[in-house]
């Protein structure tokens, strides 16, 4: 087990889970969000390679109105 922060909320994850697996397990459509881990962008093509680590801070964003 490891603990990560997702959009500011603390969550437990299974060991060796990739960001791609985490997104799917959490109900995100990976084609409709973008992510960053510890403030660095993670491209969709890396979702199945990037394994989450204890203490990772994950941001998951979607389109929104803006000025």
């Amino acid at each position: 087990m490891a603990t990560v922060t997702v959009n500011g909320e603390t969550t437990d994850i299974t060991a060796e889970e990739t960001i791609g697996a985490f997104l799917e397990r959490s109900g995100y459509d990976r084609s409709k969000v973008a992510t960053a881990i510890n403030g660095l962008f993670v491209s969709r093509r890396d979702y199945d390679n990037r394994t989450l680590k204890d203490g990772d801070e994950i941001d998951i964003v979607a389109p929104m109105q803006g000025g």
Partner: protein
Amino acid sequence: MGSALYPSPDVMRDAIEAAGAELVTVALRRQSPQQASGSRFWELIRELNVRVLPNTAGCRTVKEAVATAQMARELFETNWIKLEVIGDDYTLQPDTAALVEAADILIKEGFEVLPYTTEDLITAQKLIDAGCRVVMPWGSYIGSGRGLVNKFALQTLRARLPDATLIVDAGLGKPSEAAHAMELGFDAVLVNSAIALSADPPTMAEAFANAVEAGRAGYEAGLMSPRDMASPSTPTLGTPFWHAGT
């Protein structure tokens, strides 16, 4: 034109169509899997068939702005980015040193960077040197509706940067202020609050569009130079009751 603060998505769509806007700004925000508002909004924007300009609103550091731009590129499928790096929470004044640094990084990564900046000439020159083809100085604080606070500096930007595309980005409150920006020789204006917070956004959007057209035509026609004293427009020759020396 901005896509935020409208009373409803339908009003936003009607206002964007009424303005005939060529570029619509959008943003990124954290979202939980239960929320579908992001994809609904994105579908609505896509149906409008306009070019989108994602922003990095809320970013305070170079690292945040660069990561946000990279996320926006993937999500909105465009390499255009409205680059904002904010230095002060109360005025939302750009941190111009960080802005230039972030612009430099993003341009090297293939982005078309449209930076939101102040009216400072040297910052604008540095942004152009970094590779920005567009510079977007504020008229006044974002959302303040105070118009063009420093017209003289905006005029200087136009005079010193004749080849850059210049867009007044923030602070416009009235259509007349958009016309004024265009009369100064700016290439476009970016408006959100003044339209979205009006009583009738589609009508206000059309008013802004008309003002932009009028201001641009005025600039192209060549404005007369101001004079210090009156100069009669009616011919003086043949004025009745005129006597030499009286």
